[in-house]
């Protein structure tokens, strides 16, 4: 008896050892964030690791029926993305959706095809790393494991739409015509077109930047919460700084964290981040560094970092932050959730001191997909169908600025459209002017890494731990680590 007990114990100890080995192996680098977009401030990124892979292994129930119904098409539609934004749009607005599984990992369609969602948060290049692996193995993967659709962010879209890599199928090959895409904003087409002008991805949103402010704080600080008057008070950076000083006197913060205003500077640069193997830091980035240092030292910001808990709490009921730089997708995807019911009606948006854009998500068809017809249909329905996209904008919980020029014009001029969350403001009208002017000609395929690393490296400078030159050195080290091909970093 005793011997048996001993052997059992030994066996379980051994098993525990084996499992422990697995444990430390899995605790991998990717400190996953809640990953709203590519910008996740890495210093705050130690969020849940286990949620990093909502990799779904639920196998296809309707596989057989699908093969019968869909003809030559595959029974599984694999979609890769980095958050649940597209997933919820798809589940709510794709007409053929029949049911969604309890854990949301799969969606069943009317023709029997099962959509499998693979969600990998974007921080630390995690999404791209996993996607790259999968795309490179695409040729040898079984049909049902092949990626059919993958999503792209503005920061790295160029990496995937190049002709030489050819991982995204040109839309023309899928049978989507220029007429289908005619109502989309031109910049959303240009950025994802290859050298010979073939568009390789399509988006359901345009992403003009905005400044979302808290009405109650604006009233206290400026005496008004009217978007036009607030905009007048924030019209340029010197006025913005004046308001920041006033807000501080009243006990508020102007911005939440270090990276809040980053996009207003970084997306107004004159040159792309990387040309050849040289990283060029734009003078505008240095302007961001200067401004943020000034804001930090004067106590105008709350020293949080983008996507961190502090940052999210600052948008909640007890927040003391005047406003947040956001893009149109940020309202529905982040702000509404963070502000909670209590925040409904307490927010408004204006253009802010400098026009800019931020992000945007594109849908691309993966080379080698076994569902080209279905992919085409998804793209047409969700990114080219005006009625569906208008419905997204009009949804109380979404309010996204969608990629249909005529649709947005209609909503902009519709006197009945108003956002309850934004206290009755018609924010679409505000952005229908700005959206067509967005210029993304200065993006490069290295943007995500460069943005993330420079925010990271200069966080220490803002904290007062190191001087500018050390921060510069740290950025150079980090960027060369991330992209071994980079040989040189040029500072203005």
């Amino acid at each position: 008896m005793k011997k048996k007990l001993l052997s059992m114990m030994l066996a379980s100890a051994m098993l525990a050892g084996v499992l422990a080995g697995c444990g430390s192996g899995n605790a991998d680098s990717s400190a996953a964030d809640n990953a709203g977009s590519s910008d996740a401030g890495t210093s705050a990124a130690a969020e849940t690791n286990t949620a990093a892979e909502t990799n779904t292994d639920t196998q296809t129930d309707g596989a057989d029926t699908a093969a019968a119904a869909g003809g030559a098409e595959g029974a599984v539609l694999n979609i890769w993305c980095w958050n649940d934004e597209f997933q919820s749009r798809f589940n709510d607005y794709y007409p053929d959706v029949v049911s969604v599984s309890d854990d949301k990992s799969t969606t069943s369609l009317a023709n029997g095809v099962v959509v499998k969602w693979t969600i990998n948060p974007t921080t630390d290049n995690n999404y791209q790393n996993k996607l790259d692996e999968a795309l490179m193995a695409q040729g040898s993967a079984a049909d049902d494991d092949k990626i059919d659709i993958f999503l792209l962010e503005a920061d790295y879209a160029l990496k995937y739409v190049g002709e030489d890599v050819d991982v995204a199928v040109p839309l023309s090959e899928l049978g989507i015509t220029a007429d289908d895409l005619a109502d989309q904003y031109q910049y959303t087409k240009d950025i994802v077109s290859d050298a010979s002008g073939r568009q390789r991805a399509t988006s359901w949103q345009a992403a003009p930047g905005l400044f979302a402010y808290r009405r109650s704080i604006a009233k206290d600080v400026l005496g008004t919460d009217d978007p036009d008057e607030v905009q007048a008070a924030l019209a340029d950076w010197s006025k913005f700084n004046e308001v920041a000083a006033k807000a501080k006197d009243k006990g508020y913060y102007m911005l939440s964290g270090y990276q809040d205003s980053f996009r207003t500077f970084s997306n107004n640069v004159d040159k792309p981040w990387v040309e050849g193997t040289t990283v060029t830091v734009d003078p505008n980035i240095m302007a961001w560094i200067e401004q943020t240092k000034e804001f930090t030292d004067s106590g105008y910001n709350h020293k949080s970092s983008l996507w961190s808990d502090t940052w999210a709490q600052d948008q909640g009921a007890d927040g003391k932050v005047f406003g947040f730089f956001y893009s149109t997708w940020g309202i529905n995807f982040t702000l509404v959730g963070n502000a909670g019911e209590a925040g409904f009606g307490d927010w408004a948006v204006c253009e802010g001191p400098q026009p800019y854009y931020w992000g945007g998500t594109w849908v691309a068809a993966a080379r080698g997909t076994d569902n080209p017809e279905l992919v085409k249909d998804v793209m047409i329905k969700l990114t080219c169908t005006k009625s569906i996209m208008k419905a997204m904008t009009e949804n109380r919980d979404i309010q996204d600025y969608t990629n249909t020029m005529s649709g947005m014009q209609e909503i902009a001029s519709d006197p009945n459209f108003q956002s309850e969350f934004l206290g009755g403001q018609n924010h679409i009208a505000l952005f229908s002017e700005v959206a067509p002017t967005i210029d993304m000609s200065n993006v490069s395929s290295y943007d995500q890494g460069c943005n993330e690393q420079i925010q990271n490296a200069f966080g220490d400078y803002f904290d007062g731990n190191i001087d500018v030159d050390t921060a510069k050195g740290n950025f150079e080290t980090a960027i060369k680590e991330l992209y071994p091909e980079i040989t040189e970093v040029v500072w203005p």
Partner: protein
Amino acid sequence: MREKNSKKKTVTYEKWGYVFILPFFASFFIFSFLPLLDTVRYSFYEYYRSGLKEIGPNFIGLKNYIELLATDLPKYAANTFILWVIGFVPQIVISLLLASWFVDARLKIRAKQFFKVVIYLPNLIMAAAFSMLFFTLFSDTGPVNSFLVNQGITAEPIRFMATVGGTRGLIGLMNFLMWFGNTTIMLMAAIMGVSPSLFEAAEIDGCNPTQIFFKITLPLIRPILAYTMITSMIGGLQMFDVPQVLTGGSGNPDRTSMTLIMYLNNHLASKNYGMAGALSVYLFLVSAILCFIVYKMMNVDDPDGSKAAAKKQKKLAKKEARG
């Protein structure tokens, strides 16, 4: 034994021993040893990924090794060492204290078993989860800060993760908490291995507890202490999950909590197999040296266990033989 067997013609079970260990060796060979050789091979190559294109492998000799030494490798090695020391020093002190209390016959501590379990518990939590917990606890708006502010201990929240001392301190604290239970139990075993008659004799001779601890306990458990230190050092060399999760992989502030393995992980994240391979070889060499020391220590047959003592004994024996 063998003679007996051959005479009696009984069945031998010897071969089964080999059969039973075969799966381990086979899987080790396929899944560990071959990749290991590959790692060494790639360390001499330029081999990374740029976007979706693979660069290399191009043979470049020792360039990776030289480049590593020229860049920040020494700094990260120093970080790793500092972080290990911050965790190890309190760990060994507290463990020694606890171990000598627990085994002291005169103290008669009750519920010893219970305490042993409790101090071992933190080790059962996954390091990454533990680190995440601390990240949340000590964040700028976390429970620790709201407690400090509410109690009026500090006016402003302390930004632990924004200072070098704070971050390193937290990492050290976590490593201490996770490992002191383990060390305590090991040292208890060591102390219990000391003959009780020695303690009794010391007591009769009028030693006070402090003297007993320093004159009897410490010298006699020195081999185990050294063993603990070296194994902990090997573990410290591989420190990864705690700082990685706490700092989100950045090793901030100012890369002062970037450990060697985090650095390795950065290279792997960018698929820079050549550089990562070279770094791994360096790490392997250091670990190998440490392991060798442990091996030597465990195999010296003298009561003290230390090399110096062994040498002394040999010399003495020689002298005696001569004289």
